[in-house]
């Protein structure tokens, strides 16, 4: 073994990366195929259903596209937000917690909004979500700036705190708990009044949700924010070298606080939009975007256009896996999650392989 070691590749070629990714996906699909065959399912049939996301030959195909968008929007916004923090080398792995905080606060608004103007309701939900998530981010950043605490631990632990808060709300039958359905003896999360649900532009049967438009505009805005504005420039400098930023006269603490607030409140916005779209809240409302978003941001090497594309691909993968899984009685969503995991893992491994190569130690020819 001592004769082999890792060497960073000298050149970075996008072509090689794509080829490696394709190889990785192929390998993972083959592993999936073995699993499927052991369950007596034809893998080719399964995969074709997965890739078409159940769109072909489906009278209600537009419903599937709507569902895909529901997965895509929160993932995209969360990944963008995490990318912003990572760019500053602030390891915000608290996407889940911030998302949940946003979702809870958006639901508080939603459950108490009977009779309000729909636009105003959704707007208020988003603001509540952004503020609550943003404040959590701000608190972590403040601790980091003031006491140099470890933001990775802080944000990670907050994930669990927020998860148990929402579980508590979902499990506690009490008079004050307006989150739950009143007509049920068992504790079940209630549904939002209609005015708290996300509207959209109707094209035939298809409804193009406003949340998608918001997400796309946001992508463009964040792109320009990072590339062109002074604040974006400051984030890059702080991320690259905090000592240099300080030396250049930047107020590093302020920049960290500001950026973390923006990052967390964007995740809050994703939560606000997601709860409004779902019309209810639950402890699985995050759909793990806080975790998946980390993968998206790093696979995209923190580039905004790449985050946009990667988010689409991962949403298609997620939705496709689930759509295909529902067609077979032998498997359920858990299989879809296994397959997704295998594919993401393979892509990460091949990403590593595309960056490094294994070199063998040669003996000297004259030795």
């Amino acid at each position: 073994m001592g004769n082999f070691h890792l060497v960073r590749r000298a050149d970075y070629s996008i072509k090689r990366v794509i080829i490696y990714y394709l190889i990785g996906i192929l390998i993972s699909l083959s592993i999936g195929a073995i699993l499927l065959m052991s369950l007596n399912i034809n893998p080719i049939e399964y995969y074709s259903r997965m890739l078409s996301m159940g769109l072909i030959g489906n009278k209600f195909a537009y419903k599937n596209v709507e569902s895909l968008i529901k997965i895509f929007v929160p993932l995209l916004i969360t990944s963008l937000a995490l990318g912003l923090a990572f760019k500053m080398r602030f390891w915000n792995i608290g996407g889940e917690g911030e998302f949940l905080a946003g979702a809870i606060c958006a639901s508080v608004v939603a459950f108490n909004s009977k009779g309000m103007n729909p636009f105003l309701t959704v707007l208020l939900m988003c603001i509540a979500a952004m503020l609550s998530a943003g404040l959590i981010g701000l608190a972590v950043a403040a601790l980091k700036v003031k006491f140099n605490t470890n933001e990775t631990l802080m944000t990670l632990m907050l994930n669990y705190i927020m998860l148990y808060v929402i579980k508590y709300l979902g499990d506690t039958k009490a008079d004050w708990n307006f989150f739950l359905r009143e007509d049920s003896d068992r504790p079940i999360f209630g549904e939002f009044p209609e005015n708290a649900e996300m509207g959209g532009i109707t094209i035939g049967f298809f409804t193009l949700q406003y949340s998608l438009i918001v997400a796309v505009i946001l992508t463009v805005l964040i792109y320009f924010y990072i590339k062109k504005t002074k604040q974006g420039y400051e984030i890059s400098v702080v991320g690259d070298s905090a000592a240099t930023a300080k030396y250049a006269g930047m107020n590093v603490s302020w920049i960290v606080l500001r950026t973390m607030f923006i990052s967390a409140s964007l995740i809050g916005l994703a939560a606000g939009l997601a709860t409004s779209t779902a019309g209810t809240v639950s402890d699985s409302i995050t759909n793990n975007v806080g975790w998946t978003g980390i993968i998206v941001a790093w696979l995209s090497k923190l580039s905004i256009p790449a985050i946009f594309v990667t988010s689409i691909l991962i949403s298609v993968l997620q939705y496709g896996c689930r759509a295909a899984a529902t067609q077979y009685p032998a498997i359920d969503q858990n299989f879809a999650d296994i397959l997704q995991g295998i594919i993401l893992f393979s892509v990460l491994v091949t990403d590593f392989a595309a960056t490094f190569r294994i070199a063998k130690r040669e003996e000297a020819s004259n030795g």
Partner: protein
Amino acid sequence: MGNAIELRGISKSFGSVAANKNINLTVEKGEILALLGENGSGKTTLMNMLSGIYMPDSGSIFVDGKKVSINSPEQSAKLGIGMVHQHFKLVERFTALENIRLGLKTGGKFLLGKDTRKYIEDTAAKFGFEIDSDKLVCNMSVSEKQTLEILKVICYGANIIILDEPTAVLTVQEIDKLFDVMRKMKQDGHSIIIITHKLNEVMEISDRVAVLRHGEYIGSVKTSGTNEKELTELMVGRRISLNIERPVMEKTHPLLEIRDLTVRNDEGAIAVDGMNFYIRGGEMLGVAGIAGSGQKELCEAIAGLRPIERGQMLHEGESIVGMSPKKILDHGISMSFIPEDRLGMGLAPSLSITDNMILKNYNEAKGIFVDRKAAREEAKEAIDKLEIVTPSTETPVRKLSGGNVQKVLLGREIKSGPNVLVTAYPVRGLDINSSYMIYDILNQQKQKGVGILFVGEDLDVMLALCDKIMVMCHGRLQGVVNSTNTTKEDIGLMMTGALNIVNKEGKTDGIAADSAFEDKKEDANG
């Protein structure tokens, strides 16, 4: 005598960069071999392969004539190879004895048994190490720490000792002591490889000199049969003049005056203790001192990056105490500090040259956007003027070579047209060629009437380049000397605190005759 170490066809590359190409090198038993080469010529990489930190891509290593493969530092130690790194690897809270005991494989059951102490102290006495074995490392000076490092590798049974730039942090007197120890080790049959940039030291201590250039082994020469000039030519690959110019300028009034300045370091200890000095226009004032004598804190205080405890700082008669870094910059004081890792402060390594150019004035553009168009022009200008070698203005700074990085940094500092330039270690880690280009840039600024504070490491360079040199020791001023009528030995004594000439012949160093302070002082008193 046989060969202690023989390297055959050693190659090592990092990505596309070949750090070592087919190197053949031998070290005889009981020999002091100096390894010479410009920065980036692959000296440290090669030594790291001997000490098991890196593994060669190809080639073989023979120790005592036997072919070996060194896969880890432990293995390297077992083969009797010990390396003393530039950055010490010691436990700060342990005593000297405890630090050595840590890695000792023998020595009884008890961690600090009598045998262990005896063994260590005997070894120290044998080679003439002056060391207090019960002193905590955190209370040691740099030279004591280095002594301990060397003693440590000898106690571990090393026969072949590699010293990576051991003299960089030492004073002249301490270097002499080190060389004495090295000679004793040699007599005892140890082989020593010493990496250094300083040719006079190479001439003094080594038996043979091996030269690397751009990762290739150029050859080796007997020290007795060569001279500094020939070694330089071997190292650089062509003839080069070793004279540093010192244009003499008409000096103007004091631009920057520092009075009674006291500054604390990050740990809260006094780092600069009641310093007085001034810089006139058209003058280059060198700052000499052992590493960590308060140079960094002094620079940071002048640049407004560090609050001061006490004292006054006047720039053209106006106090700059308490001003923000930005305001001090606007005033015309510019600082370029090159830290050990070169990129840590002053530049953002992953950002382009363009982005680094506007680091200090990006905020001047109107609106919320950064003005990259103007920045690109500035970057182009700097690239042309200072002959920075780069594929484009958008290349990340970390992809440039050391000399070019430092030029980018100086280019930005000069761009704002300062009248006081504080520059710390501007040639740190640079090869001879690049260093001379930096000296030229600084001299040009001086000729424009800029006052320059030059914090340096190499006394020879400072004596040749600076008009005056002030010496610091433990944050205190030890004296200001004219570089035309002083000696290295005097400066060395002042650096260690053995000599203080601040108040010689009834006049006080560091206080200008035509100071802008006089009237101010009366104001303060009245």
